């Protein structure tokens, strides 16, 4: 039995875990659900030894676990598959697995033997292994998940903790993955599944623990609960979903037109292949796709950070100064400079910078005023415009990015995985903002690029699928996640 007693963990001023008790039994799949930011990943890191808790202890089969030591956790039999990729890109998959448990640890390093062991375990699980000597760099997202799971299993762990493993899988790959979890349960292991996808939790878990703001608020089983019930427990209130039915019947003239957009990388590999589509005023168009099919590059092209190999991006709105605002994903790496102040982050957007600059001269007080105004309008919780962006919480950083996108009064907004990592309330807020932007008096155009099919189906009018750098429109009436998921998976895998 895996037990966590009164685990408490603080990061600076944030209390991530507040005296959390948790228990999981052998031969059970235990789902740990909660919003983003509820503390699930933190709890996992404590159990897996990556983090040392401030108070409390973890106990496996009666023996206390040494805090803050991943090595001790692995030795005790706890293996984790993390949400962010933990593979070594430039090494071969055999080398990656050799750093797991397939290596005997004595004698010379025998990569062939390791590969053989990996293959046999993979066969048992129905995994297909990459070709010999292939590096991880060019592997697909689903292959990487499999390799990480394989590496974790190579430790023959008593406990396997998986953090949002299905978030990068196409819908068609979900069922086999859940079956895998059931197999592992059948072997008598303890499987802890961390997820915010309630349907999955109910489908596969034996017991469910709900976290909210660092506290356990419920322990239940699928029989005793439902998705709505869990959602309510997770957020503690009913969030008024934005008025999704209020989609206008006609959208306006096209504003953003993409013509035969093509991008080849420096080795000649084609990343984007003759993309053509358009977004009209008053419309929210979604591009659904599994990460790694060209979305990031498309966003870079739209932002002007990169030049296409051929093709055109056109803004068709006649009014002068029509602009496009792009919100990149992975906010901490691309969108914000954490060391800089809020108003400085604001003027990263070229349009805004031009507004506060004359003849190359930067008008700081003008920028600061603008920032203050946006902080109020978008209810960003921050001491002031002079605050460093790094001091803001994740949700507030996202608000800042949304604020920046809107501040330049764009005609088109492009957002990439904008709700990833946000809790339900913040997600609803972002969706509301987008809907107002599109269907309000301004009749803006929104292009949402996301791997979250649910999110897209909720608010998008038209849906495009991107797969291997190619785009296709879907039938207007096609809303079945299964079929769309198949299209997303495309020929990949």
């Amino acid at each position, binding site marked *: 039995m895996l037990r966590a007693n009164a685990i408490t963990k603080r990061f600076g001023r944030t209390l991530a875990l507040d005296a959390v008790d948790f228990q999981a039994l052998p031969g059970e799949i235990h789902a740990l659900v909660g919003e983003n930011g509820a503390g699930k990943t933190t709890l996992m890191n404590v159990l897996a030894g990556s983090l040392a808790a401030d108070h409390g202890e973890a106990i496996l089969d009666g023996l206390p676990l040494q805090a803050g030591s991943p090595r001790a956790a692995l030795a005790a039999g706890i293996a984790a598959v993390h949400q*962010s990729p*933990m593979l*070594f890109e430039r*090494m071969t998959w055999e080398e990656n697995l050799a*750093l797991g448990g397939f290596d005997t640890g004595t004698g010379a*390093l025998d990569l062939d033997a390791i590969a053989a062991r990996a293959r046999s375990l993979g066969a048992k699980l129905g995994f297909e292994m990459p070709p010999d000597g292939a590096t991880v760099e060019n592997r697909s997202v689903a292959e990487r998940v499999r390799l990480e799971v394989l590496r974790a299993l190579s430790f023959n762990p008593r406990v396997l903790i998986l953090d949002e493993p299905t978030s990068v899988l196409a819908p068609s790959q979900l069922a086999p993955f859940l079956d895998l979890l059931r197999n592992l349960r059948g072997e008598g292991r303890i499987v802890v599944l961390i997820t915010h996808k309630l349907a999955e939790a109910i489908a596969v878990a034996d017991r469910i623990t709900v976290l909210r703001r660092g506290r356990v608020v419920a322990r239940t089983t699928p029989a005793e609960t439902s998705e709505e019930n869990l959602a309510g427990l997770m957020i503690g209130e009913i969030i008024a979903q934005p008025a999704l039915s209020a989609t206008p019947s006609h959208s306006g003239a096209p504003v953003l037109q993409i013509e035969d957009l093509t991008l080849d990388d420096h080795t000649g590999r084609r990343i984007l292949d003759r993309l053509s589509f358009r977004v009209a005023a008053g419309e929210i168009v979604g591009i659904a796709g599994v990460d790694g099919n060209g979305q990031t590059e498309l966003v870079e092209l739209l932002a002007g950070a990169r030049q296409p190999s051929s093709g055109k991006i056109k803004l068709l709105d006649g009014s002068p100064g029509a602009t496009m605002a792009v919100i990149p994903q992975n906010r901490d790496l691309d969108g914000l400079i954490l060391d800089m102040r809020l108003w400085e982050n604001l003027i990263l957007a070229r349009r805004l910078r031009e507004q506060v600059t004359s003849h190359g001269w930067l008008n700081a007080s003008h920028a600061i005023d603008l920032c203050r105004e946006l902080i109020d309008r978008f209810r960003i919780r921050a001491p002031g415009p002079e605050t460093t962006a790094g001091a803001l919480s994740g949700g507030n950083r996202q608000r800042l990015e949304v604020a920046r996108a809107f501040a330049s009064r764009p005609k088109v907004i492009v957002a990439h995985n904008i709700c990833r990592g946000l809790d339900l309330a913040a997600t609803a807020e972002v969706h509301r903002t987008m809907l107002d932007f599109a269907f309000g008096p301004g009749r803006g155009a929104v292009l949402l690029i996301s791997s979250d099919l649910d999110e897209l189906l909720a608010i998008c009018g038209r849906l495009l699928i991107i797969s291997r750098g190619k785009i296709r429109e879907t039938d207007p009436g096609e809303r079945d996640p299964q079929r769309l998921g198949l299209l997303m998976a495309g020929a990949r895998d």
Partner: protein
Amino acid sequence: MLEAFLISSITMATPILLAALGELLVEESGVINIGIEGAMLAGAFAALAIAYFSGSTALGLGGGVAAGVAINAIFAVLVVNLAVNQVVTGTAVSILALGLTGVFYRKLFGVTGKAFMVAPIAKIPLGPLARIPLLGPVLFNHNALVYFTFILAPALWYVIAHTRYGLRLRACGERPEAADALGLGVIAIRWQALVVSGAMTGLAGAFLTLAYAGTFVENISAGRGFVALSVVIVGRWNSWGLVAASVLFGAAMALQFGLQALGTIVPYQLFLALPYALTLVVLAGFGGQAAAPSALGEPYRRD
């Protein structure tokens, strides 16, 4: 003539290669150590001072090793434990070592200009091999440190590419968070790389004073540590490439003396500048960082 030049090339290449091999270990673990110049200089000074006052070359070599380790330890505390900017720290360490060796040199040996010298380490001819025409003296008639260094290169290649430890080392330089999550212990491994590299670089410095010059002058390393950094890049983080690049730069340094002896009308400063200019040219042609470990230069901290 040619023979003297080739022998000199090998001799000049040795400290550069030794330091570069150490730096290779460090960079594979994800750290770039600009302080390598300081470690070499400290090693050079300590080796000479200890050999001179104790009369023992062995103690001198040990002193050089210890000094190199000490300098790298200062660097390691800041860069590995405190996760600060590696480039500026390394530069500061080199400045610090320059100052410390200068101050202690003046203190111990005064400004009287009294030449204090030690007998250079003896060469060890390798029997009949040393008698092969041209190749013999060039390859097989050197002191022990030279043999050690050139044998170390393939040994290190094997360790890095084919052993368990090498795999862990490279994991730290590729993605330290993942390495830590697997229980590899990034901090410990980076410290180990820096200590071993410090020993090697200190030894390289000791070579300069004990085997090559027989004395110490201020800033005797003259940028060889920095050249070693370039050697790692030009050699594309590969032991064999490092050997080739080191010999190339060693040859450039050897050229100085050969051509000076010719008494040409070309100014001698050109030859003194040659190794550094050559480094630039080679880097311009081959200096891409594509082959570098992914996490090179990024401070890493376990939260």
